[in-house]
């Protein structure tokens, strides 16, 4: 058993993890040095940091920038976009710190797209009243991730453990975090890493669904690990379908395509969004904020479902599709603003967007819910923080607005890093750690996992692949937990998940090598997925109303029901028993719940604001 000692451990090397690690390093360099302590920070990631899924974010990062915009407007858009299920104090903090964080990224070298005068350019985005989305062409996540990764190289306090797969948390009887257990992928060796604070930044769980825009690594690992230790997963029923994924693969076609003026048409060439409360139709080449194609993602994906039911969708391979029309933007403009989209459309559906329609359909994109944290990103376990898509700090409510999450990982990544560093510094100043008790926890965890892994790879047992279980899981989630849901479908899916959890007990890995046993890793990821899927399905079943991305088909549940469900769902793990759901009050102290208005309904909204 190899053991390591750190002050702060960051699990995950995507945007949130990197931003948190940098913040912790800076906090250590200033406050730490002042009190004569240095902070050693470990960053563990199951992939090299620049492979993390932040890399695939395309459209941009939101912050109030223009003189005619206000933080109050960004707040109002975010809270309404989330159908009033966002924590309003958290949203308020977010909109006030968003701009400074994007400026910080600029000063670290992020190649933001610019106006002729050298100022940063902003673009339109769905559900945003004013242009406030910063972008780096259509590879914003890529540029942010690489900028953060490269900047992190400046900080000697950050020690990277690339390709270490975190299996578990070390938690003592007083519910304080003590460290993590990780598998070194290149050797198969288990490592115990101790620390006074741990930050989970492990990303979402889109791979729980068959048809998604996510990379193969987006399997909810951190969510499941925290959940198994009693931290509730919050608002898991809210799963965002991005309206424009490529058929077949699910590859993401950015919302910026519509922000730049792209339109959606059905198989008859009709701009169908005007029939779903998003009209009147805006003239071609003249997009209007919060109208038509610039409505929020939940409404657009739901409109697709209705078009599909009515038989007005076209076909691409086996997929029902509608079409994204970018032709009127012209080749030169497309190359400047949407070069990656042109490349993706050409490679994966053999379409040139300058001359042809791009077939698209909704695909699972983002988990609004996650590890429940307070407004300082701390979980129910002392010293355990969570940030980014794996977390539910309460920013997105029932539906995330595009370009809020890239800013989220900066604003809350910094906050989580600073808080964790403070926790570690306070720990260093206080009484000495009970190393004997801690080592005992580390050893027990190590032995439990050693046993589990040997069992999974035990060649005495009959080989049983994880593949059929994974396929059954993603199929049942899509069937029962999709854009529209009902009691019978959810019950069936929940029963299927419970059965699959039983089946997973019998898996025996085919690959018995120690080095780079990706067969084993994918099996462990599937086990994480099964737990996360159960929380999504249970919360969707219990939320008998329609709100944001969660839509029920039963006529009694088709409307939002604030009297009963203006509450967060929290799902708790129970060993060897079905999960348990409890409700939690929502912070609505700034803006009372109201109707969400888009398209022509927004007329007169300005007067209300004033």
């Amino acid at each position, binding site marked *: 058993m190899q053991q390591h000692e750190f002050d702060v451990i960051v699990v995950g090397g995507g945007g949130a993890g990197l931003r948190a690690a940098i913040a912790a390093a800076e906090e250590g360099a200033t406050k730490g040095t002042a009190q004569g302590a240095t902070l050693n920070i470990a960053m563990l990631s199951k992939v090299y940091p620049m*492979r993390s899924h932040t890399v*695939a974010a395309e459209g941009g990062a939101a912050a109030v920038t223009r003189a005619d915009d206000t933080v109050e407007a960004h707040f109002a858009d975010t809270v309404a976009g989330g159908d009033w299920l966002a924590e309003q104090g958290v949203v308020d903090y977010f909109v006030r710190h968003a701009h400074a964080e994007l400026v910080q990224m600029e000063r670290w070298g992020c190649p933001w797209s610019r106006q*002729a005068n050298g100022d940063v350019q902003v673009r339109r985005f769905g559900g945003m009243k004013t242009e406030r989305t910063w972008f780096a062409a259509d590879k914003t996540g890529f540029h942010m991730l690489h900028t953060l990764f490269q900047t992190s190289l400046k900080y000697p306090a950050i020690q990277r453990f*690339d390709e270490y797969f975190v299996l578990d948390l070390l938690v003592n009887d007083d519910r304080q975090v003590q460290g993590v257990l990780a598998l070194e992928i290149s050797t198969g060796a288990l490592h115990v890493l101790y620390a006074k604070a741990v930050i989970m930044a492990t990303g979402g769980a889109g791979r729980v669904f068959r048809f998604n825009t996510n990379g*193969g690594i987006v399997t909810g690992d951190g969510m499941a690990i925290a959940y198994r230790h009693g931290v509730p997963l919050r608002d898991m029923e809210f799963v965002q379908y991005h309206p424009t994924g490529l058929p077949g693969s699910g590859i993401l076609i950015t919302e910026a395509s519509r922000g730049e003026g792209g339109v959606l048409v059905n198989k008859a060439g009709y701009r169908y969004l005007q029939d779903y409360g998003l009209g009147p139709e805006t003239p071609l080449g003249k997009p209007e904020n919060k109208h038509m194609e610039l409505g929020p993602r939940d409404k657009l994906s739901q409109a697709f479902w209705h078009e599909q039911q009515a038989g007005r969708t076209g076909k691409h391979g086996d997929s029902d599709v509608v079409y994204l029309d970018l032709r009127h933007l012209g080749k030169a403009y497309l190359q400047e603003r949407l070069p990656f989209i042109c490349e993706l459309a050409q*490679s*994966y559906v053999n379409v040139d967007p300058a001359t042809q329609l791009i077939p698209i359909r909704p695909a699972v994109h983002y988990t609004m819910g996650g590890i429940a944290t307070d407004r300082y990103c701390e979980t129910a376990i002392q010293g355990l923080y969570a940030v980014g898509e794996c977390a539910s700090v309460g920013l997105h409510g029932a539906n995330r607005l595009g370009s809020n999450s890239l800013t989220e990982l900066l604003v809350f990544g910094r906050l989580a890093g600073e808080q964790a560093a403070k926790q570690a510094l306070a720990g260093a100043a206080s009484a000495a750690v009970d190393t004997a008790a801690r080592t005992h926890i580390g050893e027990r965890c190590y032995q439990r996992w050693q046993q589990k892994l040997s069992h999974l790879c035990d060649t005495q047992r009959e080989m049983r692949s994880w593949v059929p279980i994974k396929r059954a899981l993603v199929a049942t989630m899509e069937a029962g937990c999709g854009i529209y849901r009902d009691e019978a479908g959810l019950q069936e899916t929940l029963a299927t998940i419970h059965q699959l959890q039983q089946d997973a007990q019998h898996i025996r890995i*085919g690959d018995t090598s120690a*080095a*780079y046993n990706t067969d084993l890793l994918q099996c462990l990821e599937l086990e994480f997925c099964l737990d996360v899927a159960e929380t999504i399905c249970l919360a969707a079943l219990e939320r008998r109303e329609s709100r944001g991305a969660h839509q029920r088909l039963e006529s009694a549940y088709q409307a939002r029901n604030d009297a009963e469900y203006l509450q967060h769902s929290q799902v708790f793990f129970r060993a060897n028993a079905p999960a348990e759901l409890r409700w939690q009050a929502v912070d609505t102290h700034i803006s009372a719940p109201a109707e969400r208005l888009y398209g022509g309904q927004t007329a007169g909204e300005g007067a209300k604001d004033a």
Partner: protein
Amino acid sequence: MRNCSIAVQRYLPHEHAEPFWQHFTVPFDESTSILDALNYIKEELDPSLSFRWSCRMAICGSCGVMVNGIPKLGCKDFLRNYLPRNYLASESTAAVSAAEIRIQPLAHFTVERDLIVDMNEFLVHLEAVKPYLITDAGADETPLEKHAQTLAQTNKQTPAQLAKYKQFANCINCGLCYSACPQFGLNPEFVGPAAIALAQRYNLDSRDQGKAARMPVLNGHNGVWSCTFVGFCSDVCPKHVDPAAAVNQGKVESAKSMLIQMFTGRG
């Protein structure tokens, strides 16, 4: 669905001393990528085959492999590219045996297992060129309050200034150019195409003042002058970064800085 023969080079360090070839038959259509084929093999035929992948949209840079001897991103290279023209459109159902596709780990790197190579050999070079903005912030001379004010604002950078380095900022660190580079094959200490492109990305950035700090690595024995300008690195780049152009620009810069050094004794 048609079938295609695929040969994969395996290497299991604890079980076999030497790499060996394994042959598979994989169904495919016009959208099947090399990565799809590898995932099919893993899920249906042999779970022990190991390779890296994630985004499947040519942006995370994980899945570089050699396909018929050429470095490729597995997710952006398609089986259709290796078949006789019009094969998919034809009525023929004969197995495509003449066109067996051979997949190997990226050349010039140490193979760890199967298609997985040691990417740290690439990362050390990347880190060596100080790939981050270096500024003489002048915090010492500026009153603290004014300094904080400056930090609250963005730098100006015109689209033309951005265009100077933007291409070099598009590198996804996939390592294909290192597998294409004969010099890196001969001398693993050579800084290599992607790292030099990244150095140029920052050297050309109007906000950066760190060129002097980066030049020693580029000027050194394993820097730009190791390159013999074969240019294959740019041919294989899946993101059109054109690292060969960066290396060439680096040579010009290096020559200048060495001349200056000769006359002034300063770097």
